[in-house]
């Protein structure tokens, strides 16, 4: 089991990381710092590994027949291996205008998503996995196909740093679109604030799952989106995406909002669980290693 170490997390604090101009350096700092803090693990890597024998059944591929054992014992056994871990991984980043929000932290949700995506990409690349990046808001606007070539990471980091917030969130539609684009099975890491209806997302998740993708969902929120903690007696809230304005008495609205937000998170969690999607809710104040631990621990179970 992977567990976070007591390594000083200050290097993984998003607000500190934000001072690092280069995403590559940031990702390296995160992943190296994170990796060096891991305890010993029974896992040695993600390469092909033997797991067990089983008796040969007619029709089995003869390539997996253990000829040596046949020579010694005259018995037909088939060698079984773990699945190939050099897989494709696409990191999907929601770049809608709602992601450009920072209240409790100096890091916007989009920045946090960029850090997280860079770190995951770096981590996967280090394991020789092919990594791609997809940016979307109301539609997919950025797509870097998954590669594990030398220098690909530079493209990844460059693309990530170029992502700009804007547009409305149409998460479900974008996921349906990506399900059609990503033809090869792989891991899909989705980073978004998930301002969409759970039932619509459910269908999108099912679509991706149907295409054979493993789905990891990071629900990134600012802490204030959960708390709705404003000191002003009255506010004129403006929707970041629609520019709709609404006068609000925070002290009056707060409890009702919190209740609805909690319900939304629960719905998302339930929706993810129902579709075998690894779901994790993160706030922009949380250190990035928390997210990486969550990612790795969930991937280790597969």
């Amino acid at each position: 089991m992977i567990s976070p170490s007591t390594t000083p997390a200050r290097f993984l604090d998003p607000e500190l990381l934000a001072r690092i101009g280069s995403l590559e350096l940031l990702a390296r700092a995160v992943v190296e710092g994170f990796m060096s803090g891991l305890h010993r693990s029974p896992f040695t890597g993600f390469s092909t590994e033997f797991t067990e024998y089983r008796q040969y059944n007619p029709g089995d591929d003869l390539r997996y027949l253990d000829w040596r054992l046949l020579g010694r014992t005259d018995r037909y056994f088939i060698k079984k291996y773990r699945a190939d871990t050099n897989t494709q991984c696409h990191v999907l980043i929601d770049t809608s205008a709602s992601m450009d929000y920072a209240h409790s932290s100096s890091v916007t949700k989009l920045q946090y998503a960029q850090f997280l995506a860079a770190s995951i990409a770096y981590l996967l690349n280090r394991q020789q996995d092919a990594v791609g990046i997809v940016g979307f808001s109301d539609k997919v606007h950025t797509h870097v196909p998954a590669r594990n070539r030398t220098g690909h990471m530079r493209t990844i980091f460059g693309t990530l740093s170029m992502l700009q917030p804007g547009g409305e969130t149409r998460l479900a539609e974008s996921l349906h679109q990506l399900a059609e684009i990503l033809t090869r099975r792989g891991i899909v890491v989705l980073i978004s604030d998930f301002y969409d209806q759970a039932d619509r997302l459910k269908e999108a998740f099912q679509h991706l799952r149907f295409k054979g993708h493993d789905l990891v969902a990071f629900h990134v929120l600012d802490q204030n989106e959960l708390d709705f903690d404003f000191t002003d007696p009255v506010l004129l809230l403006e929707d970041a995406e629609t520019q709709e304005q609404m006068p609000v008495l925070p002290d009056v609205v707060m409890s009702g909002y919190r209740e609805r937000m909690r319900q939304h998170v629960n719905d998302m969690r339930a929706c993810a669980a129902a579709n075998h999607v690894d779901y994790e809710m993160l706030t922009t104040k949380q250190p990035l290693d928390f997210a990486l631990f969550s990612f790795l621990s969930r991937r280790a179970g597969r």
Partner: protein
Amino acid sequence: MSFLTPLFFLGVAALAAPILVHLVRRTRARKVQFPALVFVRQVPQRTIRRRTLQNVLLLLLRCLAILLIVIAFTRPFFSGGSAAKENTAAGATVVLVDNSLSMRRDPLFAEAIKRAEAIVDEARNDEQLVVLSFDKRYAVVSRFTADKNRLRLAIRSISAGWDGTDYEQALRGAESLLGEIETSGPKKIVMISDFQAPGWNQNTATFKLANTTQLTTIDVASNEPVPNIAITNVEARGVVFGQKYLDNLAVHISNFGDTPRDRIQIDFQINEQTVEKRDISLNGRDSKVIEFTGFNLNEGANRCTIDVVSGDFAPDNRFYFTLRRETPAKALIAESASRGRSDSLHLQSALTTNDDLPFTFTLKSTGSVDPSGIAEYALVVLNDAGPISGALADALIKFVEAGGQLIVSTGPRTTADSFNALQRIMPASLREAVQTKAGESVAMTNVKFDHPIFEVFQESGRLAAAHVIGYFRSEPTATATVLAQFEDGSPALVESRTGKGRVLLFASSLGPSWNDLPLTPQYLPFIHQMVRYAGARDENSWYSLGQTFTVRKSANGQIPPVDTPGGARLSEGRNSPDGDLLVTARELGFYRLRYDGEPGFAAIDTDGAEGDFTKVNFAEFVAGVSGGTGTGEGGDANRNASGEEVEGRQRVWWSLLLLALLLLLAESVLARRTKMVKMVG
């Protein structure tokens, strides 16, 4: 709705206070970007809306409360007119059109006619209207009718008159007409006038409209002061007996304007010949009396005029009056013969020192008087006459009953019994003679100084200084009037009328026998006044328009033809019981009475007060005459005055203040609740 003190509407500015407080204290919302409002929108916004609503409601409550207070201070009232319109049943309306002399000012009368027609036009088709014109009297121009054409014709038939104004009479007439008609609708009186102050006297007014009668006043005159110099009165003795007019002819001239006037020229003419001219000055709202005397008069009737040369209201610039110079009538003084010594020496002297007395006197002893010749005298004075024969007594009784004047004085020769035969005509029955003790005397008391005989003594009161040492106690008859008494209460001078004549009894002597009156300066005026009173005729030197004057029969018993001032021959008139003609004056100027030989004249003048165009005090007027609701339309003063009365009755401001108080109460409850909700929230 009208307002009594609309200036208080300036208080509406106070509304700025709550609005400013509302704006200043309102928290200005900070604009904050938020990722998505989807969940905020799902929170019920009722609380927010309610609080916003509460704030707006609070503002409205405060504003409304202030507004109501301001309106209450303006003292609003609902005019009766609108209330009447709301009444579903058609009512009855009396339209009173003032056609008095003052309405001749341009364009008042035309405006009054126009307003009257407008009232007819605006009336409901089933409303019963009646039109009255009025000055000092009222005249029904049309009976109650809903026929608007007929009403318009009736209104157009009214012409401006020459008489004064009496609003009370007009309202009486209107009220009595309204009493004749039965209607479930409102009963209204619309009075169209220039509303002169002299037309209504609060102190003497006794009439009030019924509570159900609604009075609307329409003032067609402006509220600006109107300058006017007018001759309001001429005091003259209408009949004189000498060539010269020795009394003072007093002319009253008034300036009804506010500004002083200098060099006002007054012309006095007799028979169209200027007798005298005067220049006078008058302060604003001032009056002056100028006197003329010593001018000569022709024999018979003299037509006199006083003119004020002024560009103001013309009808009151000339005053007409007559002065008649007559030949004195014959009078007889009968006394007791006393060995050739006359007791009437003082009396005779007094009566011959003045040639402006109505009589020429003949002195005879009682015994030498021919009873059959009594009728040729106009006045008989029995001066301590002593015993009277039966024949003379009968003749005197007939003389008095036929219109003769009899003055009786007592004295040492008088016996009570000697007057028994005259008891029928005497104002008192004589009792016993009273002689005071030597050195003592009594005085005359309880003198009626308002009587024509004594009015000249009113200021001095010196008549009481006469010492009376002898007199007859007497018992006045029921019809007699005691004009003066002695100190013991016995009548000193008593008069009574019998038939057409009159008898004066002086219970002491007219000579020095029983009193020292002939030795005092009061004697001469006393005797003159008594004789003038006896010879006085019921003839005015002028009459007011509308008054009735008498045209007496001529010597041959015929009533003379009468020409109006306009030159027309008078055809109307009624006769008195004596057969004289009674003529009601309708035109200004001289009526000519065409007696054979010598014509007579009757001078007719306007009501002097009619030249005063000061406005009536509407508050007092409406309060004084209106028993029900009264409203004013037209002039501002009119509207205000009427409104004050109506407002006083309606007291709308009370309700408004009460409502404002309730609103402020509700505001404080709501404000407290809003605050608590905010604290809990």
